[in-house]
């Protein structure tokens, strides 16, 4: 079976990682920031899977599965915090979260 080589997968994963990192740094809504974090983690997953296929080794697949669980729990905490903030009527904009500053 011939498919795209490992280089293509790695390029896609680097692009995804950059999109995610850029999103975390410039977006204002905490929801979008959480989304961008998930994109970064999944870029890592893609790279892991590409290498695992390339090396013919199962460990990378196990790692990727574990990362998915971690990503889900992180999203749960993040969304929980955002819900708690919206209950206190805090404007959801990471640039305006400046109660703590010195």
């Amino acid at each position, binding site marked *: 079976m011939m498919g795209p080589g490992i280089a293509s997968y790695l390029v896609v994963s680097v692009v995804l990682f950059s999109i995610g990192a850029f999103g975390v740094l410039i977006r204002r809504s905490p929801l979008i920031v959480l989304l961008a974090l998930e994109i970064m983690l999944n870029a890592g997953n893609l790279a892991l899977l590409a290498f695992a296929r390339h090396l013919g080794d199962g460990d990378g697949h196990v790692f990727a599965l574990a990362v998915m669980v971690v990503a889900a729990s992180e999203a749960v905490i993040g969304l929980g915090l955002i819900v708690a*903030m919206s209950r206190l009527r805090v404007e959801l904009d990471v640039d305006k979260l400046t109660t*703590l500053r010195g």
Partner: protein
Amino acid sequence: MTEPLRHPDIDWAALAPVLTLLGTACFVLLVGVFLPRGVRRPFAAFFAAAGLVAAGIVSGILFALDDEATTLVRDSLARDRLAELGQIFVAGAGLLAVGVAYFESRGPRGDDPRVAEDDWRERVVEGYVLLLTAVAGMAFFVQANSLITLFLGLEWFSIALYVLCAINVHRIAALEAGLKYLIVGSFGSAILLFGSAFVYGGSGGLTFGEIAAGAADGERLFFAAGLAMILVGLAFKVSAAPFHMWTPDVYEGAPTPVTAFMSAATKIAALVLTLRLLLTAFPGEEELWTIAIAVIATISLAWGNIAALTQRSVKRLLAYSSVSHAGFLLMPIAAGNALGGRALLFYLVPYAALSIGSFAVVAARERELAADVTLDNLAGFGWERPFHAIAMAVFMFGFIGLPPAGLFLGKFYVFTAVYERGWTWLVIVGVVATVVSVAYYLAVVRAMYSGSAELRTAPAGGSPPRDWPLTTTVFGCLVLAVATLVVPDPLVDLARDSLAFLSFPF
């Protein structure tokens, strides 16, 4: 004919410290729900403390038994003295935090007008369970011997800490701290994960041993890039500059007992693991990582100390002080010699005692005033609460590196290790940083003993609330800090024993 299912051989003894902590956490969580409100706090605190002591004792027994390093669960976890010493340290930090947290309260109200009282009592069971879970995660993390367990352990204790920071859900500052920590912490973890993937691609293995073995015939570019990204990810957790931007905000917004715990335990876990990772997985890249870490240490020392000079909030000041101490703690790793390893393990103990102790004193003042502690409202503290103020003064002098605290010896060890490596410039950076730090640490001491004449005679606002668990903790930290100076030998021996199985590049 089917092959019988092979079950992996698991060394339960090596997992016992982690399992003890997790078991206690489950027990406290399940039983705590059924108890009447009045007894929840003593119940949760007692069992949290008991679980931490038990885990520490189990790790201590394993430490005594294990002469040589072994691994378990297909090499993904290590069973050796370094891991066990790390577990004892984090369990000890957790135990001190239990006392600081006991009477946690932030005044009459949170930011939510519908809530009458913003009190830790409402969520005390969950708070202590999360503390136990975080310690369990750290105990697992210091045992990690593969990139999978490293990432899992890191996220395990981080997620528990994100929730702990925001546990006062009615305070905007706490929620903000939790969210900021979550975003920045996950950003660091994602970088670490991406780096792990590249190290995997470059070496063909995920356990530290395989990485070291596969380094020679792998793709060199992937390997070096992956190592750099893993270092960045760990630097976020150690709060080393320039990856420290979350530290002051999170330390200020989180409940002070949580800050006390984080400032000590996260550093212990992350630095012990950094040492293990670099020495066992990247022994061939020593030039790369020693220089990278020396640079990070220098930036942390410079940035942490300069930023601390301008702070008025005591928690923020201590946060920047922890950034600068991240620099001191990274220096012995950068030295990459056996003396450096011992210096790191020694330095961690007095540092943890000073850090938890000083945040505990801040917590005491905070409960008294029901407001954030600044250098201004610290005035008169020296006459109102003589014991706490004297302890705080000792902690501040200790942070500078002066006797009567063990950091005096710690700094001496660190500088010697770096000097032995031949990096006199780094020693000079460390000494200059120490001199600069005198200014802001002494500002705290001066603030406590300043104030008008009335402040000296009559305590403002009546007698302070009685808080024996906190006072006990402060006393414990004081004893620990002084003991490491008076009798340093046992700790030095422990550090030497726990590093015996490792080989250092320099």
